[in-house]
């Protein structure tokens, strides 16, 4: 400070002013940052979780918060561009009117669609059943694609092209999710790079620069001690293991490689078994739930939920089998964890893919001329987009129910049993640790369903937002009351990056079904905004043809390959 004061006496007035103004600017910025951190959702909750359970678990909760925000923004997007104009014009605000689609009189058969909205006297039970399966009264609401049979909305003198808006909003939310995830993962990636940058120095780095001098809470200090100890120990163990691997003889190597090949084949066999059963169950469920038989409505509900149950079962058993098998493969611990995780991710995301594939094979089931005039199986699926939307809705609701049920019926009783009953078997079971990777895969699975389903059911994001909001509190309560702090603290920075990478994989996977539905499969002629088009994608070329020719040329030029490829590369 003395030297600083001595310096200022020599400086000119201008520099003095600059210095004081930059100091006060820094102060103001610091205060603004402090204030704005109060506005962040759940800031206090996540902070306290970090203090008690470490940064690994905290990263799970901040990931959950990120998803809540993302879903909320997607909901706002879809709502304001798709649902809001319809609501505005229904109530005649701003002098608006609706222009309904007049179906082209090509083939009347394709346009027969009678959603069984509840008529007459209905039992309360039917409402519950409809709520759970998205049929009945829900089918004729804004929730599903089939309701949006509107060509345009006239607001005063402007014509708001609804089909175009629907399509563009879909592209917008996919692009928004993509960009936001990339932005978040870039920060994590840089951190990762730095950490792995100098393997020659990792020990020195950990020992000399390992202690964070900002820690003031003794609890957090203890956590830091434990994580440092664990990190050092794992690093040393890995080094010893690598030495052992390098010293393996030829015979041992052969044995291990052949064992690995066998186990990989087993894993692939198990996966194909799962996928095949999902396929068969979906086909069965679709065939049987279309026979509306009110007497068997409980069974009907069960049949409708059968695909979701099978998928959840596969998601539950798969990881158990994989973690059992991998112990035979003799990898380093870090690689073991990564490989098991990769396999679990594959099971979860591919099962959604298989479900959709089996749905499509049903919809486009064109042997014996079932889909002659319309291009798709119009008898069973007069409005196939709503059906796909319903499947996604059912998956989401079932996922939510399972998470709540597991929390209520597995975690709490387990804790009660372990604390009160001193029977040896139960004590060996022990308290459960918070499995971060399993929980994260669960929510990524839910988010992928949401992304795929939003095209078919525009209000799905709001359901997802509410679902994740409730899950945050449920998981937090379960964590605080039933979990013990992990004996093996996990580093947060690399896990954050990993979660985002898996989320990105889920998003890219979601692009495929949405893309195929938009571009390949003919849109339903009986419902929805794309009735007069062959496929949903056709809206865009049609609209472009209405532009002035100069603009058309520009747009075609942009779309031509010579331009598009370098554009994407950059």
């Amino acid at each position, binding site marked *: *400070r003395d030297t600083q004061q001595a310096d200022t006496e020599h400086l000119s007035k201008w520099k003095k002013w600059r210095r004081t103004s930059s100091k006060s600017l820094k102060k103001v910025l610091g205060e603004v940052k402090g204030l704005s951190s109060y506005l962040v959702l759940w800031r206090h909750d996540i902070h306290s979780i970090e203090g008690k359970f470490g940064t690994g678990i905290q990263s799970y909760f901040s990931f959950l918060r990120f998803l809540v925000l993302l879903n909320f923004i997607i909901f706002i997007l879809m709502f304001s561009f798709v649902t809001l104009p319809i609501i505005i014009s229904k109530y005649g605000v701003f002098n608006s009117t609706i222009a309904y689609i007049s179906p082209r009189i090509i083939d009347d058969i394709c346009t027969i669609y009678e959603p069984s909205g509840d008529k007459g006297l209905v039992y309360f039970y039917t409402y519950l059943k409809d709520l759970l399966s998205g049929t009945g009264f829900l089918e004729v609401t804004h929730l599903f694609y089939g309701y949006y049979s509107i060509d345009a909305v006239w607001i005063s003198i402007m014509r708001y092209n609804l089909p175009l808006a629907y399509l563009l909003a879909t592209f917008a939310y996919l692009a928004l999710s993509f960009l936001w995830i990339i932005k978040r993962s870039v920060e994590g990636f840089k951190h990762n790079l*730095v*950490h792995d*940058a*100098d393997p*020659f*120095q990792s*020990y*020195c*780095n950990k*020992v*000399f*620069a*390992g*202690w*964070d*001098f*900002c*820690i*003031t*809470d*003794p609890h*957090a*200090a*203890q956590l830091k*001690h*434990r994580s*440092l*100890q664990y990190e*050092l*120990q794992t690093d*040393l163990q890995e*080094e*010893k293991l690598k030495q052992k691997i390098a010293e393996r003889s030829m015979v041992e190597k052969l044995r291990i490689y052949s064992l690995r090949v066998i186990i990989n084949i087993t894993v692939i066999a198990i996966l194909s078994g799962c996928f095949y059963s999902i396929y068969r169950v979906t086909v069965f469920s679709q065939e049987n739930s279309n026979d509306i038989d009110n007497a068997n409505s409980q069974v009907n509900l069960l049949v409708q939920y059968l695909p979701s149950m099978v998928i959840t079962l596969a998601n539950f058993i798969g990881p158990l089998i994989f973690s059992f098998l991998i112990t035979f493969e003799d990898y380093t611990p870090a690689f073991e964890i990564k490989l098991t995780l990769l396999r679990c991710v594959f099971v979860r995301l591919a099962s959604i893919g298989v479900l959709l594939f089996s749905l499509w094979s049903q919809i486009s089931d064109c042997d014996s001329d079932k889909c002659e005039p319309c291009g798709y199986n119009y008898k069973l699926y007069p409005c196939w987009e709503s059906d796909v939307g319903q499947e996604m809705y059912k998956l989401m609701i079932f996922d939510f129910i399972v998470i709540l049920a597991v929390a209520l019926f597995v975690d709490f009783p387990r804790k009660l049993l372990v604390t009160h009953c001193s029977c040896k078997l139960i004590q060996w079971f022990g308290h459960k640790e918070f499995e971060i990777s399993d929980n994260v895969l669960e929510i990524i699975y839910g988010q992928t369903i949401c992304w795929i389903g939003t095209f078919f059911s525009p209000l799905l994001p709001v359901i997802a937002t509410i679902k994740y909001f409730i899950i945050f509190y449920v998981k937090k309560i379960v964590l605080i009351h039933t979990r013990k702090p992990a004996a093996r603290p996990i580093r947060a920075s690399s896990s954050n990056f990993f979660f985002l990478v898996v989320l990105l994989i889920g998003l890219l996977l979601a692009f495929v079904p949405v893309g195929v539905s938009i571009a390949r499969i003919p849109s339903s002629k009986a419902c929805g905004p794309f009735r007069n088009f062959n496929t949903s994608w056709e809206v865009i070329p049609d609209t472009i043809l209405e532009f002035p020719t100069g603009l058309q040329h520009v747009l075609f030029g942009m779309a031509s390959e010579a331009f598009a490829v370098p554009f994407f590369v950059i």
Partner: protein
Amino acid sequence: AYKRFSELLPKEERENACSARVPKSQILMLPELRANPFQHRICHVFSTSETRDDSMSFEDFLDMLSVFSDSATSDIKSHYAFRIFDFDNDGTLDRKDLEQLVNCLTGQGEESRLSSAEMEQLIQNILEESDIDKDGTINLSEFQHVVSRSPDFARCGDLQR
């Protein structure tokens, strides 16, 4: 900073805070130092007391804060870090210093220490990475060299003001 220093003094001596010395036990009650495993070393390094009781005057206190702020250069930080890690004050980091350093990092309890085999392996690795002249100890320039290439060091030495 002056306010915080005077808060550490008992009431009678607050008038003369500029020239008073705060005993070590009071310094250790500062929140930043409370949870720090190197608290004793920090007090020892920054204290200029002739009676070697590790008490700190106001200038010592200021020194400590300035080294830990984000306007200190990494040279200064690494210099002081070296002195803090040098448990036997002999000017080099030898095996015993490193062993004590690692024990401080992993915690105070019995079960939180590394086994002797692990400790051997770890110290061997550290010396391999940083000991350039292969004399079995790390001197100041070797330490500064290693630390300058470490990406975490700059962050860890910043107390938030």
